[in-house]
């Protein structure tokens, strides 16, 4: 299931680095897929994706696709930020619990209330993607 892709002007303020390993995540995101790793031994997913399982320390992991659906656990609006984000102020960041049982931190695009459904979207900047959450009417 692919995520909505929102064309976004400009460059990412603080672009993430990519390894040969995490490139799969960011390439997938560019195409609208939110993927992470899941352990072949204990079957537990992890986020951010890792080349090993942090739960049982197995080296056998596989990529899985997540729905990008979840609930907003918390959120704040930042009014005083680091220098590279000063042009974006004020902006919202939050914590989302995805339905696969993973908690992530991400940008929040609207005024969703806590414990209400959200969906992840891809913000397609000129230099690459980020993800963000917005309210989702199911």
């Amino acid at each position: 299931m692919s995520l909505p892709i929102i064309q976004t002007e400009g460059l990412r303020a603080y672009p993430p680095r990519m390894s040969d390993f995490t490139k799969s995540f960011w390439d997938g995101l560019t195409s609208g897929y939110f993927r992470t790793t899941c352990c072949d031994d204990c079957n537990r997913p992890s986020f951010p994706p890792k080349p090993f399982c942090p739960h049982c320390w197995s080296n056998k992991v596989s990529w899985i696709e997540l729905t990008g659906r979840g609930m907003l656990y918390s959120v704040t609006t930042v009014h005083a930020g680091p220098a590279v984000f000063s042009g974006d102020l004020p902006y919202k960041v939050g914590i989302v619990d995805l339905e696969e049982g993973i908690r992530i931190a991400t940008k929040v695009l609207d005024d969703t209330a806590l414990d209400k459904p959200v969906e992840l979207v891809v913000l397609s900047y000129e230099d690459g993607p980020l993800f963000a959450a917005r309210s989702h009417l199911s």
Partner: protein
Amino acid sequence: MGENRVSILGGAALPVGKLQGLSDAGTQHLEHEVLAKLVVEALEDAGLEKEDVGSMIFTLPRPYTQQKYFATFMANYMRLPCDGLVMEVMGNGMTPALTFQVAVDQVRLGRTKVALALGINFETGTPSHEHMMSSMRATGDVDFHVPFGYTPISWYAMDAVRYIHEHNSSREDLAMVAVKNRRHAMFNPIAQYRKPMTLEDVLSQRPIVEPLGLFEVPGRGDGAVCLVVAEEDIAKSTGRPYVNIRGEGFFHEGAHQISEIPNDMISFQAAQRAGKKAFTDAGISASDLDLAEVYAPCTIVEVLVAEALGLCPRGQGAQQAASGETALGGRIPICTSGGLLSRGHPAYVTALYSYFELLEQLRGRGGKRQVDQAELALACTELGNYNAAMVHILEAVA
């Protein structure tokens, strides 16, 4: 605790304020001059001599401190040969607590009879938005959190939003912590912010990380502290009042800012676990404490850590600050120094100020903020979003 008790004998602390930068005359405060003066004061306070000291454990200075390899520079500046360790310690907000712990452990291991836990945090010459370019990388995953613009205190703000949601609380309730701690700071000569402050004053400030405004988050400050720790036999031999370390506890929950497996983020599990260990180690319970100094950069954090340590019932930490239970004269005074919001928060030495406050209180030197017959006190420090906590229980020995 084992048979080898470790004591805190003396200390000295710089009033927290803004010291870094050039004066009109083109001069400036230099870190080593400021700290060396405190070392001499602290030793006088302890009743010891230079030759007694065998280890110096420093907090890592901020990157804005020009002199690098500060610990060994200071060993030279003060001409102090040492058998025990001379080193700098780093652990983000827990830096000064870990520094203190290493000094205590040097004494406990028998590497020296007397150790100094000391440090200086000068940072106010660098503006906040530049400072945050560094601190944002310490409180989040550089590739999966930082690109969204989290700031260190944005995580605490999300604790506040969650707490208000779950406990039907409000920004106003939480803000009473700032008002209470300002009242404490008014009686603390080394506090950075001492002017009277009302709830209306707090609520009318500009927002920083919603729902928290300027007076609900820490200001920035420069500070320096030196503490003298030693074997209890040394402490006894001075004939002066001192403080024993009666219990210790540490716990890291194995998470950084958030747990990837959803948990109850505002239960501050690390503080619960570290607190339990420290209470067991000391053989006391939370209700035996006379006061506590907790590391709480924002109003909400004091509420959550007080609840996690069992100083207040879950969901009632804010009301108990408002009703005076955690104020001077109340059931369990918290942050009699004024805390991070009013005493000040020179981050890499903040916890040393906490131990210094408890040292003063437990020796009956708290002046107008003295807690009556203070005998048992708790200090709690943390890193991240309380992902790790370190608790010390201190006891007065007259």
